[in-house]
């Protein structure tokens, strides 16, 4: 009965979650918006803080993974470029993303 109540009837409520547990689409959105905010405001420190909240162990990797995924799936070149610029500002880039740093290929 305790298990039924605890897991099903009144499960523990989570209302103060961190961005790291967002569903994949929201997670990707958070990354895209962080890159857009960096472009608009130019605040690298704030962008890094956001990425750490999102992916504490691999902040830059998450940016690159999304950017490369968008390249493969034919995503918006402007969004890919924003992600590439953010990753570059954090000291990382890849051969896939390099063309986007000079403008959409």
């Amino acid at each position, binding site marked *: 009965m305790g298990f039924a*109540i*605890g897991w099903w009837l009144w*499960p523990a409520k989570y209302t103060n979650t*961190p*961005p790291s547990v*967002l569903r994949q689409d929201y997670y990707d959105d958070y990354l*895209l918006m962080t890159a*857009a905010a960096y472009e*608009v405001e130019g605040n690298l420190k704030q962008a890094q803080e956001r990425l750490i*909240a999102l992916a504490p162990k691999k902040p830059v990797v998450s940016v690159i993974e999304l950017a490369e995924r968008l390249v493969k799936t034919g995503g918006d070149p402007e969004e890919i470029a924003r992600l590439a610029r953010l990753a570059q500002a954090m000291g990382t880039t890849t051969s896939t993303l390099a063309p986007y740093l000079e403008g959409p290929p």
Partner: protein
Amino acid sequence: MSGPVLRRAALIVGLAIGLTLGLVYTWGIAPVELTNTYPALLRTDYRWDWVRLTAISYVADGDLERALSRLDGLEREDVAHVLEGLIEEYAAIGRSTDAMRRLTTLAEALDVYTPAMSVYLYTPALPSPAPTRTPSPIPTATATPTPTPTATATPTHTPTPTLEPTSTPTSTLHASSPLSTPTPEPTDTPRPTSTPTPTYTPTPTPPLLDRLHMTEKELVCQPGQTPRIEVVVKDERGEGLAGVEVWLTWPGGADRAVTGLKPQQGAGYADFNAERNVSYALGIGELGIPLVTGVRLEPCPAVGNERPFIGSWRIVLEP
């Protein structure tokens, strides 16, 4: 204590212990793990950051539908609070007009209003030259239709050899008459105005308000005077320009004045009361383009034994 009673008590105690252990395990040790959460469940600071990021992203990409869908499901209070703060912040630091317009568009779509928005709402998207100002065919020396002393310019009745009667079925005149008599009528004589003068080409200079910029910023120190921000708008000749809308914005507010309402101060004069430790921005005209940002009241330098006091700013805007 009899057997049945003891058994019932043991059952109740057992149930209570089982329930407690179950809840401890399911709520504390192995609670339901949420890995696919959504923005409304984020901690307050992250939730507010989500709203801020959405608004800034809209500034970057201009996709209103996407921005609204990103904010879907969030509390209206959260959205309004963050958006108001962002607009005030951007206005105070003098972000571009385009950015401010995007933010105010988003805010308006969400029924969020803040004083700083008023400058940017319902204004044209681009400060293009206003057609009401440019087409003034200024009668300058070059614009005079110089009547060249040719034979055709004289309105005499003698037909000149250049006048061909068949080639002038001018608009409505004699359009219905099938006859084209070779005797040209005096009214068909070419008028001086028909000679195209190249001096009528419109000058592409933008309107005066678009060319204004700060040329002077002076700290006015008058003891006993209420600290204020004085604005003087001048035209190309350095004369005060009356009737110009001037906007003063600051985090949490905006004020509007029109030059010339205090004629004793000059035609181009307007002023605003101001407070210390507030960063103001000045905008001009209906477009509300911020021309001067980061205006803060400052103390006047102490002279002798005078008590220090706050001065006013006098800002001159000229093309």
